[in-house]
């Protein structure tokens, strides 16, 4: 039985693990488990990344690239497009990620309660945005948030505003629209992660807390959140990465507009590589700027979470 399972693992790329002592065994076994992933990632991510870094030291048009050392990196600091893109992306990051995580947490806790009916329905409904095609929901958002769209009509009817808001045509509101779009799309996604993790929390802990007289809010803050910390950290980092690399919503809903009021860093990379005369070198440089930003923010979050790193 053990032999046949080993057989399957061999075909999936692991070696057969020969063991000597318990500690050696654990060490070698450990590496056996991770080796396939490490090799694949090195091949398909790190190798291109090194080439991309090489590219970031060159500049030129199309395939006529020459080495310019760190010129490209210096250029970043005086590139107004880049600075605008970074500012916009930061705004999205700082406003949107916390809102979304809290919302997703609340929803997952609600949808995990035994007493709730129609759970499957609600979960599917809230997850649906992730599954809705990008083309479809960007067209819809543009319709809903047009100057004469449903949202404005509703707000006018309810007398919340007295003039239509330029959701897509005003630099400030366009950013709000993007944030709404991202939240709409990704809350369900994060909710899934929390839901699946919540299943692994022992019910008896909650029961004991209820007996001790804890309120729902107390249970949430003192039991749920601490126990979910690894997952919250995970979603927070993934959301950070996702937002810093934001592309789809900006390209499809506002196209970076009005002007470049909603342009994101990834959109700028796309423009540099494909929309304008391609300057792959500088585009690679901007990509690495994103990497640096992500590293900084992720590191900060790891530290705050107090993980033993």
């Amino acid at each position, binding site marked *: 039985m*053990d032999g046949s*399972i*080993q057989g399957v693992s061999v075909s999936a790329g692991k070696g057969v693990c020969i063991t000597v002592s318990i500690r050696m065994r654990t060490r070698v*076994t*450990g*590496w*056996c*488990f*991770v080796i*396939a*992933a*490490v090799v*694949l*990632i090195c091949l*398909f*991510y*790190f*190798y*291109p*990344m090194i*080439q*991309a870094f090489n590219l970031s030291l060159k500049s030129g048009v199309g395939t006529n690239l020459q080495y310019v050392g760190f010129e490209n990196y210096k250029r970043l600091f005086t590139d107004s497009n880049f600075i605008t893109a970074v500012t916009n992306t930061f705004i999205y990051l700082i406003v949107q990620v916390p809102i979304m995580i809290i919302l997703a947490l609340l*929803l997952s806790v*609600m949808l995990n309660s035994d007493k709730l009916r129609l759970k*499957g329905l609600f*979960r*599917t409904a*809230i*997850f*649906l*945005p992730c*599954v*809705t*095609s990008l*083309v*479809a*929901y960007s067209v*819809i*958002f543009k*319709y809903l948030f047009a100057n004469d769209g449903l949202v404005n009509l509703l707000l006018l009817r309810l007398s919340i505003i007295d003039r239509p808001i330029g959701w897509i045509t005003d630099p400030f509101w366009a950013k709000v629209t993007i944030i709404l779009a991202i939240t*709409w799309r990704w809350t369900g*996604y994060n909710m*899934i992660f929390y*839901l*699946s*993790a919540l*299943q*692994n*929390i022992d*019910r008896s802990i909650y029961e004991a807390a209820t007996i001790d007289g804890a309120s*729902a809010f107390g249970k949430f803050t003192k039991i749920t959140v601490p126990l979910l910390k690894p*997952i919250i950290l*995970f979603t927070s980092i993934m959301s950070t990465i996702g937002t810093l690399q934001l592309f789809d919503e900006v390209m499809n809903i506002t196209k970076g507009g009005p002007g470049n009021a909603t342009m994101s*860093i990834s959109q700028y990379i796309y423009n540099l*590589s494909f929309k304008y005369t391609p300057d792959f070198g500088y585009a690679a440089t901007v*990509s690495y700027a*994103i990497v640096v930003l*992500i590293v900084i923010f*992720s590191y900060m979050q790891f530290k705050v979470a107090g993980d033993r*790193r």
Partner: protein
Amino acid sequence: MIARRVFMYLFLGVTAFVSIFPFLWMVVSSTNPSVEVTKGRLMPGTHLFVNLSNLVERIDLVRALANSLVIALITTGLALLIGSLAGYGFEIYRSRAKDAVFNILLLSMMIPFAALMVPLYRMFAWLSGKMPVIGIDTKAAVILPTMATAFLIFFFRQNTKMFEREMIEAGRIDGLGELGIFLRIYVPTMRTTYAAAAIITFMSSWNNYMWPLVVLQSDAKKTIPLLISNLGSSYSPDYGMIMTAIVIATLPTALVFFLMQKHFVAGMIGSVK
């Protein structure tokens, strides 16, 4: 108490409606002709069959769906296997060296894909010369770079932190080998994690756009998102038909989700001990 329940249902109801609305509009639009769709019509029409037959005439819908399905299923299967083994490995057999490697692996998530596209393309173009079966314009070329992601490893690792180590000891005492423990104790316990990972991976593979766009050349190989993109690139797009295509393309992911979400059911705990 009642107030709290009412509030909860209300909150969930509004959230659900807001979430669903665009999807509903999508479905309604697939039953309308293009001119009605552009006007933002909300009422269903009778144009569904026409849109559908136009669509099938226009593109090889079945083959594109099949391509997408094969790629997504294989990618999900392999990615889950590789990712969970690695996540388990990094967490359970923890060591300083492994932690360092893990941190480096995380870096791979941080670079935008656009930067990797040209080097990856060059790699596969070179492969086309040596081993065409995994070169440009093959399903394997689409699957290979997406098979192992730091994302999944990170995901499984974090979830493994909530896994009880005593179970491993119990397994060892029972005489199971390390892989045996993984397959017979870890995997069943982490069912919900696998379900979530399956949904996310399937979805991301199904909707994957940039890499298949660049690496797949012939019509016969294309996946559904690429063909839908073609539909929209026209001086006069047929929006009803596009919506029909999108609805059809969305069904598999919705289905996968619906099947998997049943696994998010409490009741796992207790049975394990």
